[in-house]
């Protein structure tokens, strides 16, 4: 299997008078793990469904490899989709689920079952070949869904919130499996999620979307360390967005310093204190910046404990200031 590059050229999706996706441009290099990240209603799912061919594009073009696939049906785009909650056929056992698309193409039964068995082996589900989806756990269903999507040897695999049906423990396990599988196959993955931790853990390219627009696209490190807008800084988490005379700035929560002394950049009152293990999260209220969060190392916190109601001075180093573009 070989990945293809994906390119969106001013792709737009309108439903009646509402614009779900507004002229977005995006280039995803071949073999990239790309996460579309954003809150619900931001247009990430519409974008994925347009790439898959399950949603017509109102305007713009979708290019996969060298081909413009904008008007092609899903099966002729070289993409395969892994659906939210997997959409495995409940009346078919694992092997027939995986072999489904070959059956639709008229591939002979023994050939397609042999091929399906290969893919079930790939995802370590071959002992369960004869089971029905209802007899499998969530993680096992996900593996079968992955095998089903991969049987057509797609160049791009599209995943619609693949981990949302799993409990938190399994989610972390399966996300590691997805990442490993993507590295092994070398194909392009486009993964829709609303969880920033998921995007950070998996992606080579994080695309943060909001209100039908791409706010920022870049590596997880880029997006986390240099959020372009206040929205990205807030959504990606771990940042404080502070209005200053020179425009809005973002400061990472773990770079905020608190002290009981006078001075500092801001005065604030401690609202809550949460123990998180390696660090203590201190919620602050300040007239200058609605709410602030500081992550204080456990040892540092113990040296100068704080309680809700305490007045503190908030400060940060010049190097930790990250200027945000004033728009949005």
């Amino acid at each position, binding site marked *: 299997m070989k990945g293809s590059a994906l390119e969106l050229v001013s792709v737009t999706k309108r439903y009646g008078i509402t614009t779900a996706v507004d002229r977005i441009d995006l280039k995803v290099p071949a073999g990239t793990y790309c996460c579309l990240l954003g809150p619900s209603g931001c247009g990430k799912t519409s974008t994925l469904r347009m790439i898959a061919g399950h949603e017509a594009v109102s305007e713009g073009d979708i290019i996969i490899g060298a081909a413009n696939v904008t008007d092609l049906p899903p099966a002729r785009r070289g993409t395969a989709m892994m659906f*939210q909650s997997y959409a495995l*056929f*409940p009346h078919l056992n694992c092997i027939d689920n995986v072999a*489904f*698309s070959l059956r*639709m193409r008229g591939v002979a039964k023994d050939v397609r079952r042999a091929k399906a068995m290969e893919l079930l082996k790939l995802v370590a589900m071959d002992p369960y070949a004869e089971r029905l989806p209802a007899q499998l756990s969530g993680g096992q269903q996900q593996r079968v869904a992955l095998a089903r999507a991969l049987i057509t040897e797609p160049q791009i695999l599209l995943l619609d919130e693949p981990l949302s049906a799993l409990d938190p423990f399994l989610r972390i396990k399966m996300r590691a499996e997805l990442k490993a599988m993507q590295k092994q196959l070398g194909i392009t993955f486009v993964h829709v999620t609303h969880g920033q931790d998921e995007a950070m853990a998996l992606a080579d390219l994080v695309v943060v979307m909001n209100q039908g627009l791409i706010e920022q696209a870049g590596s997880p490190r880029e997006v986390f360390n240099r959020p372009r807008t206040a929205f990205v800084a807030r959504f990606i988490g771990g940042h404080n967005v502070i209005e200053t005379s020179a425009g809005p700035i973002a400061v990472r929560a773990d770079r905020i310093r608190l002290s009981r002394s006078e001075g500092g950049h801001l005065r604030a009152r401690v609202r809550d204190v949460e123990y998180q293990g390696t660090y203590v999260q201190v919620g602050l209220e300040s007239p200058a910046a609605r709410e602030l969060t500081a992550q204080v190392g456990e040892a540092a916190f113990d040296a100068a404990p704080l309680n809700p109601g305490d007045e503190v001075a908030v400060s940060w180093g010049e190097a930790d200031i990250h200027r945000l573009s004033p728009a949005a």
Partner: protein
Amino acid sequence: MKTKDPFTLPAWAQVGPFAFVFGLFFIIPLAFVVMVSFWDYTEYSLVPDFTLRSYVETFEGCYDQLPGLCTILKTYVSTVKFCFLVWLFTLLIGFTIAYFLAFHVQSVTMQMTLALISTIPFWTSNVIRMISWIPLLGRNGLVNQGLIKLGVIKEPLEWLLYSDFAVVLAFVHLFTFFMVIPIFNSMARIDKRLIEAAYDAGATGWQTLWTVIIPLAKPGIVIGSIFVITIVMGDFVTVGVMGGQQIASAGKIIETRLGALQFPPAAANAVILLAVVLLIITAMNRVVDIRKEL
């Protein structure tokens, strides 16, 4: 559940009322029918006995006439033929309507409204409904006159009323609803993403229908089929009226015997009919195990 004993008072209280109704009005009468079917009879009395007379008389001459068909076999062939035709048409029409309701109508309110509209045939009594076919399908009825005026035919069509066609038409009109509701119910439970998944896998519309929708709608199809088949097998009023009293039916045999106060042969015919219906349903259960599917 902490209790292991299912035979607690609340359990009995819940099962009791329906078990009572079922026993009193179904099991006991059925047992009586089976019992009476083995009784002897004269012109004016029933004689408690254990004799196969009623069964023997019912099938009288059937062996001698082979390979020709005796009356009872002819009647059953005719009834089963109606049954098959009505089943086929109600299934095709009912499946189409259910498909439309489940996959093309977006709002639940609209789905319910349209489903209720298909109950309209039940708003009038069976007799009035059947009589109203006469001005429509009769020799000088609306259809014949319309076709003559349009120049499609010169002579009125005789087979529109009091014919096999009329019987099937009346049944289909009435019982399509019994197919629509269970099939719609099965289809409404199909996750729409399954259809997208099939499309994603390159399935055409027909392939999706055959490989995804029909297998998943099977329980509804079987339940609807059982409704239609049991009703049509036992009906004699519709066949009588729409067939102009010229078409025999399994139900009609029972009615005639009852009319003549010959209860044992009536009961024997009822038992035979029940056996045939059970046979058909068992055969269908072989195709789809509804206990498993539900």
